[in-house]
């Protein structure tokens, strides 16, 4: 009896594993692996999957006469889960392209799979610039923003406004350390000083201890090299403990959802750098309106980036008449990107998508005239200025 149960269970498991998705030659498969349930789930998340579907529908639902299918999975912020799912889809589901959501660590792990399986990977959500340097691959495109562009935008603006000495509150993982390193370089390059940093474990319950250390350093600027809830909670505590009276906070990465959670009274005056904002042009406002109608909030730059990246990929497939990864990558590195996300964007040899970035300052409650009217444009940076020159660390792009 027991043996029969075991055999039955094994058979059922095997059937489930192999029958999950059959390899299909008559469809083009796009995947999206992201944090769907954790701290970054509002940055891209389930709404990000929805905008990918919008892009597919807007493209016509088919390419080269084949139906376009969208798969999605939750990586739970664990690199092993993200990489395993990517490998599974590449082996069993005929995956043609993957969108990588939030978390630099997970995306670094997935980049290795992209190289091994020759599947183009569009890194939408991660910040770590190592993805186009030491961790670059021939199949990677870093699409929305990176730590270098964030630092070039925000740190430059603050140093030029007189904030010369910095202390960092750094998220203790790949993203945070890369962001701190990029900002430190910018600060030094502009004649400023880095007085120190404290590495904070991801998802800390309380930031006040770290903030008092920052204050004791005597630095003028509090560089927040963290993201999501960690960013919001550290800024909230900085206000509460009066740190913001003696130090100027710098949001090295903030999404519009974070600003909305904090509220303008707590976030006003903050400088930040973004690749996209819903209230920039009639096109961005149209996308914002469409998104708002469905999700009752404005999209983040990552959600706009996911929509744009999907279209960019499909246009390249159409242009070369094939989903062959090498042909598509060659086309992607030739094409100009013009849509609601960016104008005149292009993908460099190292995989970085070079496009305009915007330095913003959060409005005061008085300046804000309508819902989600949060940012004042300080400076539009050209892609070359934002992302900087090729470093030579990626073997695909010698200096």
């Amino acid at each position: 009896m027991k043996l029969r149960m075991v055999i039955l269970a094994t058979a059922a498991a095997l059937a489930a594993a192999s029958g999950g998705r059959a390899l299909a030659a008559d469809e083009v498969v796009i995947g999206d692996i992201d944090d769907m349930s954790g701290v970054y789930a509002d940055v891209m998340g389930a709404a990000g999957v929805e905008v990918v579907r919008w892009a597919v529908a807007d493209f016509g639902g088919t390419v080269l006469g084949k139906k376009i299918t969208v798969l999605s999975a939750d990586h739970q912020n664990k690199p092993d889960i993200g990489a395993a799912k990517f490998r599974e889809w590449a082996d069993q589901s005929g995956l043609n392209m993957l969108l990588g959501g939030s978390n630099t660590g997970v995306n670094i792990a997935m980049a290795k799979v992209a190289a091994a399986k020759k599947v183009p990977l569009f890194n939408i959500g991660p910040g770590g610039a190592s993805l186009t340097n030491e961790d670059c691959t021939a199949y990677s495109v870093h699409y929305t923003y990176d730590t270098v562009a964030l630092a070039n935008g925000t740190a430059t603006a603050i140093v030029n406004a007189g904030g010369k000495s910095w202390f960092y509150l750094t998220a203790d993982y790949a993203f945070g350390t890369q962001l701190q390193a990029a900002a430190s370089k910018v600060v030094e390059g502009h004649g400023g000083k880095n007085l120190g940093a404290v590495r904070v474990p991801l998802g800390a319950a309380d930031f006040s201890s770290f903030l008092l250390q920052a204050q004791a350093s005597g630095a003028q600027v509090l560089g927040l090299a963290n993201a999501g809830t960690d960013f919001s909670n550290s800024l909230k505590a900085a206000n509460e403990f009066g740190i913001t009276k003696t130090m100027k906070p710098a949001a090295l990465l903030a999404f519009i959802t974070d600003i909305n959670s904090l509220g303008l009274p707590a976030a006003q005056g903050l400088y930040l750098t973004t690749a996209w904002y819903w209230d920039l042009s009639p096109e961005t406002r149209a996308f914002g309106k469409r998104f708002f109608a469905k999700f009752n909030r404005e999209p983040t730059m990552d959600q706009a980036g996911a929509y744009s990246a999907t279209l960019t990929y499909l246009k390249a497939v159409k242009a070369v008449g094939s989903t062959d990864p090498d042909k598509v990558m060659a086309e992607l590195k030739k094409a100009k990107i013009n849509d609601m996300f960016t104008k005149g964007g292009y993908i460099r040899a190292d995989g970085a998508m070079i496009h305009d970035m915007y330095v913003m300052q959060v409005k005061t409650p008085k300046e804000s005239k309508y819902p989600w009217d949060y940012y004042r444009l300080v400076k539009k940076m050209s892609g070359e200025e934002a992302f900087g020159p090729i470093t030579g660390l990626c073997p695909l792009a010698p200096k």
Partner: protein
Amino acid sequence: MSDVFGIPVAVILGQLMLGLVNGSFYALLSLGLAVIFGLMGVVNFAHGAFYTLGAFAALLGLQLLGINYWVALVAAPLAVGLVGIVVERLLLRRLYRLDPLYGLLLTFGLALIAEGSLHQVFGATGESYPVPAALAGGVNLGFMFLPLYRAWVIAASVVVCFSTWFVIERTRLGATLRAATENASLLQAFGVNVPLLMSVTYGGGVALAALAGVLAAPVVLVNSHMGSSLVIVVFAVVVIGGMGSILGAIVSGLALGIIEGFTKVIYPEASNIVVFVIMALVLILRPAGLFGRE
């Protein structure tokens, strides 16, 4: 001022104060867990979820009904405590005769459902709860700026912790509760309604978690994940104090808050594991916990 081991005294005093604030949350949360485990033998993994629910109850009360902080401080724990009583009556009660593992699994499942539902409705980012006007601002202690609200958290939790300890260890009601854990059927033979006692105990423990949630709401973003990371630490606190020991939960909660605070200065990267290192040491050297009875 002078230095101690190369750390300025001002920094030491500041961290001591902040450690007390964080320790207050640990104490309040571990107290509820210790009450539930000590009196009912249930390992309540849903404790973090009830903490989150308390914060959300305060937030929604404010947004939808205009209930202010002070009312929420009483109303939210009562409401969440009632939810706890329903859970005990409908689900937990069926598992008393089984291995404690089943209670752990049930409450863990409930926590996942509660967190998933909150995530579905409110998203991951969370929302801000304003600091009540009477507690805005702060005082300069010379070595640091202490927000009034944080001082209030210490005071409130110390009062709540010691009143709970007093009720359980020093009153007739507490004696009856403790008798129920020793020998429920004998107590029932004396005419005491033991099932009702159990419901009230669970509801009370859960209400303490919700109270901690309301206290935390103005300090952190109210979001669906706020309880899940905390509950693991709080379990470690309870193990260190001695499973089921009320006083152990309070004292180790405050002490670990302070130790964690100093770790944040000396070696910040280790601040989220120091509690677990201590737990491992305590389990090796004194398996019943610092205040537990063998």
